[in-house]
């Protein structure tokens, strides 16, 4: 570590850190209420120094949901590295391993560069006109023969805001289909639904800055160290500074946060709701309730009291498999503090009773009056970089601007904005969720499926079924992507897309921070921005408004953004105070940004100003167990003054529990070094080396029972299928096995091995009744040793939740992973 000059000339402490070996970098501890120190992380390829860089192009990270602001280094028209932005409220200059190295995927030699079309069973290169004409011809045929119900649109959490909004208008008012969703259904649907249930409307209440002020961090199924590296760095800097906050972690795995926790509750997966009901029971029994806050700001408290009456810690301990005293200890910490920052992610959202559990986390903060205050807040997280925009813009099926499909006044606003008849916008029922879209394709009523920026052939549950659906002859599949994914291989038409860095647009992170992302370089070959493709389709389909003018009246990213601003006006996600000029080059701003909040709003609901009144809300709410929507009159009676709604729910056992044949609980998830199905991160040398292949984590108990040691080849079998992977013995909860879901088949050379690698061969087809998020974290399985380690170890990182109990060389990146960290003094 040497004092030196920072890149902008100010004094800094500079160090060089292997960011594969140490994903979070050097510590910069700070006290409660203090400023999180700025640490600028820079990675440039070998032989390039900052002086060689010709341009720094501002953008933000695209390989997770945190929205870390960064600049891309350019030289001679090529990307040569990245540098975190010290002026960003989100990351204060820091970057995670996926951001530091992941940009290299842009220039992979196997990018899609030409459209492809299926001829005689094979995909062959064609020109854009041929590909688009085939789409348009099939679209017209189906519209005439069957109508809009033949169309399904399945998009991503990785495109830009302008693209989602355009797609939403095409789908809802152009084609007129209700069958639209994004892969956000797999990552963030429960976050949105839980916020709708509690606050009447989607929208992240809290702020990342709450980490600076909190006294308690409550991480519920949120392995933040791996999903949001720089947010964990911020938490870690508080944990290692003065006024250390208490840390409560609920996770069956020994994650890095779990290892730092004051209370770690390694619950049996699928039992979150039982645990949370018991914590609430303790809060109420010990009268740790802020009654003044609850009375002034909520309805439904009495229901909650009734529901949790019998939910003692002993009752939950038996269900969750954790000691009752530990549950009481967690409740005691929550009951003695007010600055509680609660967060949820996939351990809640992809698990059993997802929305019901996420709602109880909201309830805990409401009971404690910990909302809208510095350090007292809720972060219902996202998994993907632009998932927030999928939700806002309606590309997930919801109506744009968090409008309520069951409220004709809201639908009329859209009809007026788009100048179409009210009946042109399907709103006779809830939007069709992803799993139902695939079901309709399976039974044959959806005949045209347009997939953009996502890889369902690896990411959806029960892959054998998904592959057979995509391969159906009657189903016309269009895949728009940057690589030849497992899904693209099954398509009828493949459209090569441009990606981040090759197109302009905006996107919004999990704490409502809007970033502008600039074009750094041209896309390869004939690849086009997704926005261009959507606009081209709309033009060719000749979608018209009520007066015969073109339905889509914009032609580039900036004009699409302006169209979206008009749509967002007056809604919680109000973008009207923003502009491209303002957002460019470090102008990141949180929404809402409008006349009332000209500089954006750090925290929502600071004074109980919810969007929950019946005329404003996005949803009237649902029965948390059956998913049945409340009628408008029921909601008006329940919540006449538009307060926050405290909703209770009873625990029920998961749909699949261990049996004699399948005695173990399967858990699937992610690692810090990869993103989704590795379409990008699997093409980055540093990240591939850190986690090259699938593995399975099991406990010492399972290792002893099955005579399994580190590195042994193991077969994991569920009622749906089987996979093979090398075993990693860890401190994971006994009875649970974990498999990372990232690994598919595109990088498997041996065709015989083209099965049995993806975790989703094993998962069950079932979803949360409210959010419709599939269940990836509870299924039954068994394991069996099928081969000896013969000196090999599992290809799993040692730096993270997959840390071995012993005897494995530490994961390191060497000189190829060296990153310069400049801590501003």
């Amino acid at each position, binding site marked *: 570590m040497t004092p030196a000059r920072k890149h902008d000339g100010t004094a800094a402490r500079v160090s060089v850190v292997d960011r594969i070996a140490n994903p979070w970098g050097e510590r910069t501890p700070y006290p409660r209420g203090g400023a999180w120190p700025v640490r600028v992380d820079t990675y440039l390829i070998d032989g390039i120094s900052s002086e060689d860089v010709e341009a720094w192009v501002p953008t933000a990270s695209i390989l997770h949901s945190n929205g870390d602001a960064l600049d891309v280094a350019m030289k001679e028209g090529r990307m040569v590295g990245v540098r975190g932005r010290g002026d960003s409220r989100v990351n204060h200059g820091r970057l995670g391993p996926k951001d530091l190295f992941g940009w290299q995927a842009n220039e992979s030699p196997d990018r899609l560069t030409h459209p492809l079309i299926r001829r005689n069973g094979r995909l062959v290169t064609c020109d854009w006109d041929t590909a688009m004409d085939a789409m348009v011809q099939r679209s017209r045929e189906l519209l005439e023969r*069957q109508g809009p119900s033949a169309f399904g649109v399945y998009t991503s959490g990785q495109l830009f805001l302008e693209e989602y909004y355009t797609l939403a208008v095409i789908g809802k008012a152009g084609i007129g289909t209700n069958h639209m969703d994004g892969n956000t259904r797999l990552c963030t649907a429960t976050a949105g639904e839980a916020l709708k249930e509690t606050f009447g409307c989607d929208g992240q209440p809290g702020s990342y800055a709450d980490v600076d002020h909190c006294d308690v961090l409550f991480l519920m199924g949120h392995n933040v160290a791996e999903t949001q590296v720089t947010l964990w760095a911020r938490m870690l800097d508080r944990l290692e500074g003065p006024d250390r906050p208490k840390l409560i972690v609920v996770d069956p795995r020994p994650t890095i946060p779990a290892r730092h926790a004051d209370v770690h509750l390694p619950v049996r997966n699928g039992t979150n709701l039982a645990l949370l009901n018991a914590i609430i029971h303790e809060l109420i029994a010990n009268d740790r309730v802020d009654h003044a806050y609850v009375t002034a700001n909520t309805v439904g408290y009495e229901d909650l009291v009734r529901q949790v009456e019998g939910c003692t810690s002993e009752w939950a301990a038996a269900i969750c498999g954790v000691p009752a005293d530990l549950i009481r200890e967690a409740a005691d910490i929550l009951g003695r503090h007010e600055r509680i920052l609660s967060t949820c992610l996939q351990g809640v959202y992809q698990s059993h009773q997802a929305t019901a559990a996420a709602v109880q986390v909201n309830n805990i903060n409401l009971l404690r009056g910990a909302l809208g205050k510095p350090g007292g807040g809720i972060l219902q997280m996202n998994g993907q970089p632009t998932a927030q925009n999928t939700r806002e813009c309606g590309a997930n099926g919801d109506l744009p601007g968090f409008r309520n499909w069951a409220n004709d006044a809201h639908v009329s606003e859209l009809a007026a904005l788009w100048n179409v008849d009210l009946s042109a916008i399907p709103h006779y*029922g809830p939007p069709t969720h992803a*799993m139902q879209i695939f079901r309709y394709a399976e039974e044959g009523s959806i005949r045209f499926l347009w997939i953009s920026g996502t890889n369902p052939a690896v990411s959806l549950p029960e892959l054998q079924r998904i592959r057979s659906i995509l391969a159906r002859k009657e189903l016309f599949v269009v895949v728009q992507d940057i690589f030849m994914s497992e899904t693209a291989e099954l398509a009828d038409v493949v459209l090569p897309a441009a990606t981040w860095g090759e197109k302009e647009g905006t996107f919004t992170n999990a704490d409502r921070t809007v970033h502008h992302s600039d074009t750094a370089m041209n896309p390869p070959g004939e690849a086009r921005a997704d926005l261009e493709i959507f606009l081209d389709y709309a033009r060719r389909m000749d979608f018209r408004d009520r007066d015969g003018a073109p339905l889509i009246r914009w032609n580039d990213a900036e004009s699409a953004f302006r169209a979206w601003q008009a749509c967002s006006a007056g809604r919680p996600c109000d973008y009207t105070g923003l502009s491209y000029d303002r957002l460019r080059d470090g102008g990141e701003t949180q929404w809402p940004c409008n006349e009332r909040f000209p500089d954006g709003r750090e925290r929502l609901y600071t004074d109980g100003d919810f969007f929950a009144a019946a005329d404003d809300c996005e949803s009237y709410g649902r029965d948390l167990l*059956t998913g049945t929507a409340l009628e408008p009159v029921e909601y008006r009676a329940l919540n006449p003054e538009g307060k926050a709604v405290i909703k209770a729910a009873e625990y029920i056992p998961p749909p699949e529990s261990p049996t004699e044949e399948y005695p173990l609980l399967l858990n699937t998830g992610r690692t810090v070094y990869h993103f989704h199905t590795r379409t990008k991160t699997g093409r980055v040398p540093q990240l591939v080396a850190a986690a090259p292949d699938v593995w399975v984590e099991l406990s010492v108990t399972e290792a002893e029972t099955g005579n399994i040691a580190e590195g042994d080849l193991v077969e994991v079998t569920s009622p749906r299928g089987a996979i093979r992977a090398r075993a990693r013995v860890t401190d994971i909860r006994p009875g649970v096995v974990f498999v990372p879901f990232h690994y598919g088949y595109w990088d498997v050379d041996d065709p015989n091995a083209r099965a049995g690698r993806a975790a989703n061969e094993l998962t069950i087809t*079932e979803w949360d009744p409210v959010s419709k998020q599939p269940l990836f974290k509870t299924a039954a399985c068994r394991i069996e040793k099928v081969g000896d380690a013969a000196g090999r170890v599992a290809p799993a990182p040692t730096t993270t939740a997959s840390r071995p109990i012993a005897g494995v060389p530490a994961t390191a990146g060497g000189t190829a992973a060296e990153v310069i960290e400049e801590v501003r003094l």
Partner: protein
Amino acid sequence: VRIAAALSETHDAEADLAAHLLEVGERHKVEHDVYHLTRTLRRWCDRHVHLLAEQSLRFDVDLDAEAVSKEKPGGGLLDRLRETTSEIVGGRVETGLLLLRDLRELHLAAARASLAWTVLGQGAQAIREPALLAVVSKCHPQTIRTMKWTVQKIKEASPQILAA
């Protein structure tokens, strides 16, 4: 007393609802949400039947507490399942329309059970039986939730079935 008749009517209606839930779930296994949720809702019926059987002893009837739990998929329902399977194979009823028909029947079974609870609740109040009323107050809302779900599912499923 006549309350015994109301008790056994409610008991039978809940057992019948449970049988419908089982049947619909088994027949529409490929509709994964229907399959899993009907199993969950059936657990409510099981609990209701147990509580009613517990009460029945005080009113000189002996209702079967295991009326729901002893029924297994494929048991007494087999004939009806075969019948509809042949209907599908014969192309007489499309699966989508069959789903709507089954959900409609399920709704009616739930409505019958809900009405039985209403009658029982009124009776419990009239003869001043707080313990029985407590059972009604606990169980009836759940039966109503089942009934509402059937309406919701019919609403959601019918547009695609009819338009495609």
